[in-house]
């Protein structure tokens, strides 16, 4: 079985699952800086489960979801409780921290490859299609004072996403960034007012 190592952890990988990359590592680092001991953490779109693997170090509960059944299988192989779900639909609980590394790239018809590989990257025409659905539902799943960590790219439209987060009542800060070849990756933290 293939695997990669990041910090002190070995992440097992299977086919049809997003292979951890720059964005995954940036999210792990942001998570480590912004989670608190005892947090209840939900990871949406968990892929290999790499982010949740670091969340379990301090959380009291970690649940991971993905639409892709291969991703859920991979995440469970990595020791995390995971289920197949569209974002958080089917989960009835609130969390202190919700983490999402969404498909954030704008896509057009010619970009589609077919199958699960599209799902990992397809952000819709403006790159914000999945983010929009996610933000519309977080109110129900965040505990009072709870936070989200959302990873986006400069290609997703930083100002637009910040505005969407504020519209949902979140206080927004940029908490991590990393420059890639043709884009900048950013982690936004959105905190619900108590």
């Amino acid at each position: 079985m293939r695997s990669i190592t990041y910090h002190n952890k070995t992440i097992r990988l299977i086919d049809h699952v997003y292979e951890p990359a720059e964005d995954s590592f940036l999210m792990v680092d942001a998570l480590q800086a912004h989670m608190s001991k005892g947090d209840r953490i939900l990871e949406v779109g968990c892929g290999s489960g790499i982010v949740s693997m670091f969340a379990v170090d301090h959380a009291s509960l970690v649940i991971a979801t993905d639409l892709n059944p291969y991703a859920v299988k991979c995440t469970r192989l990595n020791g995390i409780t995971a289920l197949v779900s569209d974002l958080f639909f089917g989960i009835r609980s609130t969390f202190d921290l919700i983490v999402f590394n969404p498909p954030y790239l704008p896509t057009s018809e010619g970009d589609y490859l077919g199958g699960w590989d599209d799902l990992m990257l397809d952000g819709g025409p403006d790159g914000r299609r999945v983010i929009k659905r996610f933000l519309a539902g977080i109110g129900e799943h965040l505990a009072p004072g709870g936070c989200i960590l959302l990873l986006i790219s400069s290609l997703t439209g930083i100002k637009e996403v910040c505005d969407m987060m504020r519209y949902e009542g979140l206080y927004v800060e940029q908490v991590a960034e990393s420059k890639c070849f043709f884009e900048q990756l950013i982690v936004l933290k959105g905190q619900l007012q108590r």
Partner: protein
Amino acid sequence: MEILCCPMCKGDLVLTVDEEDDKEIIKGSLFCGKCNEYYPIEEGIPNMLPPDLRV
């Protein structure tokens, strides 16, 4: 189990266990009476997708 609900109506689900070990439910289903819909549990993994999103 207590954190799961129907992804469509958010209502309660009724669990049926077909196979389990000492750790978890391996095979079974979750049923929403209001939507008259089953959500399968296979290889220990609940599939909470509405029917139109399943493969």
